Structures are given as structure tokens and as C-alpha cells.
């Protein structure tokens, strides 16, 4: 187990299109970091560079104090001691579960059934599965076996490349929990690549947001959700209500009235700005004079909660998250109150100022 430090990692493929540009990342020993970004942002490339499957154009990768890439040296993947769990599990189809799990063990230990059983239990699987073929396993089981295989040689770091994206919703949750438990039980340092913000927020100790080959924010999940670095990150990590506002005397004047705010970045922010609210900050009540009102456009009912689409008088459409009881009916008017503070960002003329999701 060791920490991972990435400095100034840059990589471009054919036609000199940069895939990664100067990425810096530190993953503390024993922690779980998610690399979050939309598809094509370079997160899988970053993972492959760390694993040693590809060589960067420049920059360094270090495991603890040991530099494995950069400064004129490159340790081949097989000597890095980095476990890798690919997208679809990537189990060797010609080997049994036991054969897969023991693949990376020294020759003497490969026949050790107890070790395989121990690893199967670690990932929450029945040791009786050891003799099965990969195609006899469900997608979630395959992912867990792939994790057990990666953990078997006791790697200093485990990389997971979108391991849950091919699973259906129910299985994904269950597999996520099992993988989290196995990782924390093994104490391994782990890096997970994902485009699913809920996965990143719920599983990781820290989240690194990648966009266009650059690392735009590296922080813990709560801070990321509450204080995103910019509005793009804000809308990527969760639903958002973005409004044009005028900042004056400590209050933000916007379509939802005068709201207390905090600036997203240090420094003074005055005048035209855009503010971020989360849909769960909006509260609805029967129309009251003087309170900002809106017309309910439609209601998406989810059971545990619901999303209410609201048309503001100036034509903007925003959403509010409410719990199941006492929902307004489409077509009625409601008053909106806002809980908590808004987060203020500088106005940018070129951007469409409409509410974004």
C-alpha cells in the first residue's frame, strides 16, 4: 500500500490532439479517490498511464517515494504492483474463477485453495464459486472476481476503470457496496474512474473532476457538491438551479427574491453575477403576496421524493426537489422560498444564462 502522486502528466495521441494536459493528483495512502468526468475527458487515459499500459509525453508518476514513470525511467506495468479492474471485468475466459484469482500469485501459491477462498470471501462471494467459469457468473460477480484477482498479489494501488457501468441499476448498488467493503477491508489505496457523479460522491474519499484533459477540481465529495469550482462542475456533479443575479449589499437579487450568498471563490464579487442553488433548497407553499411565485409545469414522482418543474414569471424553468407528501398539482401557482445560501459565480456574457440542469 502506498500513496500515488502524479505531476504534470501530459499525453497526446495521433495528430497531436492533447488528451491530458499537466495533470497533478495526489492520492493519500489507503484512501479512495474517484476520477470523475464525462466520456472523452481523458480519465481512462490517466488510469492507463498510471498503470503503465501507456507512456506519457511528460510528467511523473510516483508510488510513495518510488518514481515509476518520468525522469527518464519507466517501470513496466508488470513490475509496478498496481492492480487493475477493467470495465467489463476482463476475466480470462479460459480460466476458472480460481485460475483467474490466482493468476498473479507466485507459482507455489497458485494451487492454494485457501487463499482463493479467502479472497472470494473478501469480495463477498461464496468460495464454492471457485471452480466456475467466468461465463457462468453474473456481471456483478464477474466484477467482484476481477477485484479479487487484482487484490490477490497485494498491490500497492488498485485501479478500477468504470467497473460498474455495465451492470444494471439494482446489481450496481449491491456490487458497489461489496467493492467498497472489500477495498476498505484490504486497506488498499484505490482510484476509480467513473462518469457517474452519484457513484463518485457516495464511494470516494476525494473526487478529482477531469474536463477536457485537465484536472479542474480535487476535493472531498461534500465540498465538491456544496462548493463546486465553477458552474460546469456544479451542473456535472448534481442537479442545479442557475439564475442571473445582481449582487448588492450582501444580498443576491434574482428571480427568487433577495437571497443571502457566498462567493464561490475568494475575493469580492459585486454587481452582475450568476448564482447556484440546489433543487432541494427550494421550498414551495400556497401563493402568498410579496413572495416570488411560479406556475407548476409538471411533477416527476419518484416515490422517495419528486421533482417539481416550475415556470418563473420571466420564462425561466427551474426544478425543486420535494419529499413525496403534499405535492402541488400541475397548472397551479405556488410561492417559492429558498433555504440556506446561494453560491455566487462571476457572470460570463458568452454563456447562456438560462437555468441549466
Amino acid at each position, binding site marked *: 500500500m502506498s500513496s500515488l502522486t502524479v505531476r504534470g502528466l501530459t499525453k497526446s495521441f495521433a495528430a497531436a490532439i492533447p488528451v491530458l494536459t499537466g495533470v497533478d493528483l495526489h492520492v493519500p495512502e489507503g484512501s479512495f479517490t474517484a476520477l470523475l468526468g464525462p466520456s472523452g475527458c481523458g480519465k481512462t487515459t490517466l488510469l*492507463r498511464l498510471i498503470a*503503465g499500459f501507456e507512456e506519457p509525453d511528460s510528467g511523473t508518476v510516483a508510488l510513495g517515494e518510488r518514481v515509476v514513470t518520468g525522469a527518464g525511467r519507466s517501470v513496466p*506495468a*508488470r513490475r509496478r504492483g498496481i492492480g487493475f479492474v*477493467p470495465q467489463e471485468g476482463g476475466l480470462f475466459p479460459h480460466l476458472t474463477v480460481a485460475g483467474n484469482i490466482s*493468476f*498473479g500469485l507466485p507459482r507455489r501459491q497458485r494451487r492454494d485453495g485457501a487463499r482463493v477462498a479467502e479472497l472470494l470471501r473478501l469480495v463477498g462471494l461464496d468460495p464454492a464459486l471457485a471452480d466456475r467459469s467466468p461465463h457462468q457468473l453474473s456481471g456483478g460477480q464477474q466484477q467482484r472476481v476481477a477485484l479479487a484477482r487484482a487484490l490477490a498479489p497485494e498491490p500497492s494501488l488498485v485501479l478500477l476503470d468504470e467497473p460498474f457501468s455495465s451492470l444494471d441499476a439494482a446489481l450496481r448498488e449491491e456490487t458497489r457496496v461489496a467493492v467498497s467493503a472489500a477495498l476498505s477491508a484490504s486497506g488498499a489505496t484505490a482510484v476509480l474512474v467513473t462518469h457517474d457523479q452519484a457513484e463518485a460522491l457516495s464511494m470516494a474519499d476525494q473526487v478529482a473532476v477531469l474536463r477536457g484533459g485537465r484536472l479542474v477540481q480535487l476535493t472531498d465529495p461534500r465540498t465538491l457538491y456544496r462548493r463546486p469550482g465553477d458552474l460546469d462542475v456544479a451542473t456535472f456533479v448534481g442537479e442545479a438551479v442557475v439564475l442571473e443575479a445582481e449582487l448588492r449589499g450582501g444580498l443576491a437579487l434574482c428571480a427568487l427574491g433577495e437571497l443571502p450568498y457566498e462567493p464561490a471563490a475568494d475575493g469580492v464579487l459585486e454587481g452582475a453575477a450568476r448564482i447556484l442553488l440546489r433543487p432541494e433548497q427550494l421550498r414551495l407553499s400556497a401563493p402568498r403576496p410579496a413572495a416570488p411565485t411560479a406556475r407548476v409545469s409538471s411533477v416527476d414522482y419518484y416515490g422517495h421524493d419528486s421533482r417539481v418543474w416550475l415556470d418563473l414569471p420571466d420564462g425561466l424553468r427551474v426544478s425543486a426537489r420535494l419529499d413525496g407528501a403534499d405535492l402541488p398539482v400541475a397548472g397551479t401557482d405556488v410561492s417559492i422560498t429558498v433555504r440556506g445560501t446561494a453560491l455566487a459565480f462571476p457572470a460570463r456574457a458568452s454563456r447562456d444564462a438560462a437555468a441549466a440542469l
Partner: protein
Amino acid sequence: MTLALAVAVAALALLPLGYIAWYTADIGWTGVRELVFRPRVGELLWNTTRLVVGTVACCAVLGLAAAWLVARSSVPGRRVWHVLLVAPLAVPAFVNSYAWISLLPGLDTYAGALLVVTLSYFPFVYLPLAAAFRGLDPALEETARGLGLSGWAVFLRVQLPQLRVALLGGSLLVALHLLAEFGALQMLRYPTFTTAIYDQYRATFNGPGATMLAGVLVLLCLVLLVAELRLRGRRGYARTGRGAARPVRPVALRAFTGPVLLGLAVLVALALLVPLGSLGYWMVAGADAALDWAALAGTTGTTLALAAAAAAATTALALPTGWLAVRARGRLSTLLERSTYLGSAVPGIVVALALVTLSVRVTPWLYQTMPVLLAAYAILFLPRAIVTVRAAVEQTAPLYDDVAASLGSSAGDRLRRVTLPLLAPGIGAGAALVFLAVVTELTATLLLAPTGTTTLATAFWSASSALDYGAAAPYAVVMVLLSAPATVLLSSDARRGLTT
């Protein structure tokens, strides 16, 4: 390294074509005119063309009707009929031809040739059509019926357009096979280019006459091959129906069931029972000549050893090309892969002729040796091995290599523990296909086998050429028995192996 090997393989595959082209250029236009524009060539062209056209038409009609009946109608015993309609492929065309002519010596006419080769080749049309019918989305037909089309209109306006590629592809395959067919037509004494080349070769060894005839024949093959390649590019149309898992309600034949059953029975009787019956008859009739078990066993052993060597060599040659076609996709690897297809479209007689002449002129120490024969087999059957090797490489994703590396496995270790085990089934299947093709190969073996080397096909050939039908029968029986497993494979996996 892999690239250099693949280039060498492509060069080998193109050797016969290159030889013909070089020879043509060498004798010049006047030489070509003298040798090609003469009545004999016109006669051969007419014979070949009318046989190809007639056979393709008959095969298309039989294949389409049989495929529709088995795939879409209520005819009883559809699975059994399917196997029976593919089974004629287990009988090599020259054995089929022997079976007929030995019973009915009067078949040495156009009609006789048409009958015999149609019965041998119609499964080439039947198989892709049966597969295409299975791939059709029944929802389209239901939609058409919902729009008020009659059953016949549904067939013409909905099914047939989707089957077009399979039908044309199968027909082209028949035509290509027919252009290369030698044994069956020689046995029926029906003169076409292949038999004429053979006779010329026998008379004048490697005279310019034979080579120029080969040139014309190759030209015909290339025309068909270009058509085939163009079709291949658009093959996607035939596979629209991924969602055909839902069983189709078969079209009820009602009163037609009886006549349809009779028709299928007659077809299977002619294509399967006549050759097998004839073989059985000659086995019994020739029994008084005392079956020479030792000779049969020896020849079988030689054939199996030769086929095994050819399978090993051809599969080894297929590896670099198949690997590059998947791992280094691009124009060059496509070109290299296509070269092997082009090379194998050249009829066996032409490949043999080219290799004989080249080995005599350039490498006399190789003339009439095993390596030349193996090279001919490789040129003729490379695509069969490449198709399966390629499919295997496609399943050996680079991902497995990465995962194994991350688990501390070295390059050699990865080759041994991951890549080879994953490739093994594909390599084995490719080798099996080549093996079975070599067991029944006649033409190239006849011209290239080292003196004293007798295979089942050549032993059968010399006996039946001497009209000793009883002595020929046991060799034919062994060939049919050895081909049967491949036929079973084909009937269950219709797409594989047919397109090569």
C-alpha cells in the same frame, strides 16, 4: 516482424497470379492473340459459360425453394431436412460425378454435367439462404401483412430484397467453384477450361497453350471475385434482424404438404442417395476383386499425414495475417488479407501449373517435392485458416494482455498463459477446415504430388480413370467418411467457412 511475415504470406498467395501475369507479358500481345483467339478457346468459353449459367440458375432455384421450405414453411421434419440438404457437401463433386457416370454412362453431355454439378453445389446457395431466412426479422413480415400484403407479395417485396445478398453470394460461390472444378467434369468428359488445361499439360507439359488457357480462366475468376468483394462490402443488409429470436409461425402448406415432401425427397435422393447407393453398389460389386486393405490403409495414412502437415503449415502462415487484420487495422493489413483471398480464388489447376513451371525453372531441386505441394495447399486454403484465426484474435482483446501485465506477468509468460490458450480454439478450427479440404483435394495433388505419393483422391482418380469402379469405391468411401464431420459443423454454423 509480423508484418514481414504477412507480406511474405501474401507474396506466396499471389505467386500463381504473378506467374500468369508475367508469362502473358513475356509472350507479348501477338503471342496472346495467337494462343487465345482461336476456335478451341471459343468452344471452351461457350462450354464453361453455359455450364456456369445453367448451374447457377438451377442452384439458385433449388437453394431458394429448399431454404424457404425448411426455414419458413410447415413441412414436417424441418431439422432433418436441413441436415439432409447440407449433407451432399460431404460427397466431393468428383466422387458424385463418378457415382453417376458409373451407373449411367450416357451422362457425358451438357445435361448430365448440369445435373451432377447442380446436385453437388446447390448446398452452397441453400446454406447462406437458410441462415439469412433465420436472420430475417419476423416483425417486418408481420408489419407487411398488417399493411395488407398477401403471402406471395410479402415474399417478393419484403423477404426477397433482404435475401438478395445471400442469394447472390451463394450463386457467386457456385460459379467460382465451378470455374475451378476439374475432377467432376473430366469424369463426365465435359470439356471446360480446367480439363483443357489438364489435357494440354499432359500433352505438352508446361507449354504456352496451357498457361494461356489458365490466363483466360483466371480472368473469369477475377471478374466473379470483384463481384463477390463488392457484395461483401454491402453484406450488412442481410443482417438487419438481430431480434429474430422470437419463433416465426411457419406458413401452412396444407394440401401442398404431400407434393412438397415428395419434391424434397427426390432432391435428397438424387443428391445423396444416388452417390451413396452407387458407392455401396461398387463396394459390393467390386468385392470379388478382393479389397486391398493394406493399400487402402497406407493411402489413408499418407493422406492424413499430408493433410495434417498442410493444416499445420497453412495455419502457421495464417497467424501473422489474421493477427494484423485485427490488431493493426488499416489499408495495408486489409490489402494483405485480401491478397490471400485473391490467391485462393485461382483454380487449383492453375496454382498447380504455376508451381510446377516455377519449380522446374527457378528451383529445380524443389520440383516434385513435398514443400511445393504444401505451398499449393496453403495458397488454395489460406482463407479458411485466416477467417478462423482472425475471429479468434478478435476475441483475444488487448485488455487481457494489460490485465496479465498488471498482475506481474512477463511477455513470454503472457503468451504462454493468456494469448495462446485464447487463440487455441480458433487455430484448431482453422487447422481442421484446412485438413478436411486437403483430404479431398484432387487437382493440385494430381499435378504436384511427389512420385510415389498417393492420396485417397489420386488413388481414387487413377482407379476410376481406368474404369475400375470397384477398386475406386473404397477410397471414395473413406473420403466421404472423413468429410462428414465438417458437414455437420457447417449445418450448425452456416456462416463459417462458406464465404471463403
